[in-house]
């Protein structure tokens, strides 16, 4: 997997999102000696999803560390390593197990620079597969990005395609501040797309407009982007032209791109699979409602998970938003206009 990094000409690779994560890790560990990887099962096993596959073989156990089973420790070790000039990329095996890491994220990672007036910094990345829809057991389907987004000093990034996974992960590792990088596992092994393995990073506070449109703005991120694009297709058959924005960088939030879009379309539907209330969708809806007050032709709609736990997998389809739900929300925008 790593030999190609020796080559002067960057290779193009057909990648799933998962492979793109792996490619970015290989690239950056190859080019920056201070990057280290740690977490549960990230070494010999290459991660339970294989995101870190091949790293230990290539970079050795000193830079690819299987940790004891303790998420608070994984986060705290990362803070400690980052303070001493390393760039730890830690994995939390599933987002449902991130809670023990929270004290270190909220109380330290996000504060170290501010607390020391820049003397000590915390350039760490915490990666975690997130979201539902893969028929996994309880606690393996969480999408609690809102909790982290509310945390000052931390960036929250969620890719929705192989190329964005590659470019955003590189940016996250290179960023001098802590980044929580959430990987939508429902689309981990989706369509393979071409990626140029050239080490080019993407910006960390810019939405991606995936499709332009004139009648309604659909805003989403992560795995729901797939459903949103599907809905945009369905809408276009109905003669409705939908603009689709992938938020991608949840915090800080590039609300300007979204406002510009809604100012021109006049309608907005926000899609996420996290529980509806007090989620990221609320912030976006609040800001768009405020800042597009005079442009909005209909109230901003949210298509979301419910204010309950993701049901066990036999019933998870009743919880997850789908393209029909999105189309219905757009219909409401037109009815109420």
């Amino acid at each position, binding site marked *: 997997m790593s030999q190609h990094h020796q080559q002067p000409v960057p290779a193009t690779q057909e990648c799933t999102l998962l492979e793109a994560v792996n490619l970015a890790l290989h690239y950056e560990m190859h080019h920056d000696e201070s990057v280290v990887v740690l977490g549960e099962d990230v070494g*010999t096993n290459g991660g339970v999803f294989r995101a870190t596959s091949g790293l230990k073989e290539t970079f050795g156990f000193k830079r690819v560390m299987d940790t004891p089973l303790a998420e608070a420790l994984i986060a705290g070790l990362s803070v400690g390593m980052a303070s001493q000039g390393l760039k730890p990329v830690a994995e939390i095996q599933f987002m449902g197990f991130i809670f023990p890491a929270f004290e270190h994220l909220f109380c330290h990672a996000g504060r170290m620079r501010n607390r020391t007036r820049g003397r000590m910094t915390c350039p760490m990345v915490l990666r975690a597969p997130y979201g539902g829809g893969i028929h996994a057991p309880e606690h393996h389907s969480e999408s609690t990005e809102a909790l982290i987004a509310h945390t000052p000093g931390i960036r929250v990034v969620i890719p929705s395609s192989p190329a964005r996974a590659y470019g955003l992960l590189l940016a996250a590792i290179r960023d001098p501040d802590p980044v929580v990088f959430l990987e939508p596992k429902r689309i981990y092994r989706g369509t393979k797309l071409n990626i140029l393995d050239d080490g080019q990073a993407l910006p960390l506070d810019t939405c991606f407009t995936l499709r332009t449109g004139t009648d309604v703005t659909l805003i989403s991120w992560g795995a729901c982007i797939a459903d949103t694009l599907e809905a945009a297709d369905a809408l276009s058959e109905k003669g409705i032209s939908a603009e689709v924005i992938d938020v991608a960088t949840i915090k800080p939030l590039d609300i300007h791109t979204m406002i510009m879009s809604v100012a021109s379309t006049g309608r907005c539907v926000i899609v996420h699979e996290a529980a509806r209330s007090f989620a990221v969708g609320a912030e976006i809806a609040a800001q768009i409602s405020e800042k597009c007050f005079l442009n909005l032709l209909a109230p901003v709609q949210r298509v979301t998970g419910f204010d309950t736990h993701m049901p066990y997998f036999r019933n998870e389809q009743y919880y997850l938003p789908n393209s029909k739900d999105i189309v219905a929300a757009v219909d409401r925008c037109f009815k109420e206009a």
Partner: protein
Amino acid sequence: MKAITQAPIEAQGHQPLMAFSLEKIQFLDTDGNWLCERPSFASDQWLVQAYKHMVLNRVFDSKAIALQRTGQMGTYPSSLGQEAFGTAIGMALQKDDVFVPYYRDHGAHLLRGHKMSDLLLYWGGDERGSASGPQQDFPICVPIATQITHAAGAAAALKIKGQDQIALVTIGDGGTSKGDFFESLNVAGAWQLPLVVVVNNNQYAISVPREIQCGAPTLAQKAIGAGIHGVQVDGNDVVAVYQAILEARQRAHLHKGATLIEAMTYRLGDHTTADDASRYRSNEEVKQAWLNEPIKRLQTALHQLNLWSAEQEQAWQQQCGEQVDQAVQTYLNIKPDSAESMFDYLYQDWPEVMNEQLDLLADKLARQQHK
């Protein structure tokens, strides 16, 4: 570095302060021979019962894996090779004890009176799988080690209420690295709780081998820092595990507090059906481990005691197969719960202010029905 060029520091000013020791419990060796006198609880009947349950556990296990492989169930963590552990726990628990399991306790669960079909239902992705079983027992716990603080809380409740039961909690070797494990042992020591912690040290936490979890030679010695009793047992010896729990119960009753039992086992299968153990351990190692497995050992012991024959074995295997097949049928016939059930148990009293959620769900269902 300055310190390196200095002469080695002498250990001056030292005085002895404390000494500690650990024991190991074992009755049956790997060949099924008794290492010491058979304890009084281990009657003929008891041994046969234990054996039969271990076999049932294994038959259940392989059927569950088959269900997953054929798309009829979800991810499943096999208890292959750890049947003595679950069986001893299930047999040692009394009706009113509080059992706080983790996810690899099928053997104990069945003895607690959980319906076999409900276990399948749980692993089939249906919350109703956790609705049965003793009222006070905890459901299967997935977030590693969290269950142990619940067990400490349950033990504290027993003590506060002046009840004589114990809370018994299971946990994996990986789980012993997480803060909850230590915090619970620590409070159990400080508060002298009637808590029994049984570690299924099956040598791996998914791919991470035991020696990466912890630099200490045993996990039992983690009891020392908490000021509670620790002991290691051969976890493939059902008699030893049972004995250790009996002693722990007695310790709890005498208000000497909690016990940590490290049961040495080996996870003969993959971590779960989603895992491929050949990525991180050798066939040779697994082959060696099969020589230690608990069922063969007890079978030999029973043969030597003339308590079990080839015919009995065949009949029992068949009976287990039938019992499991019946449970599978029951399981497969259970229709999924309603979509609305996701709200039925969120709060005891449904907050009227949340009615919008029901409306949203109704709309969604209407859309899903009209394809």
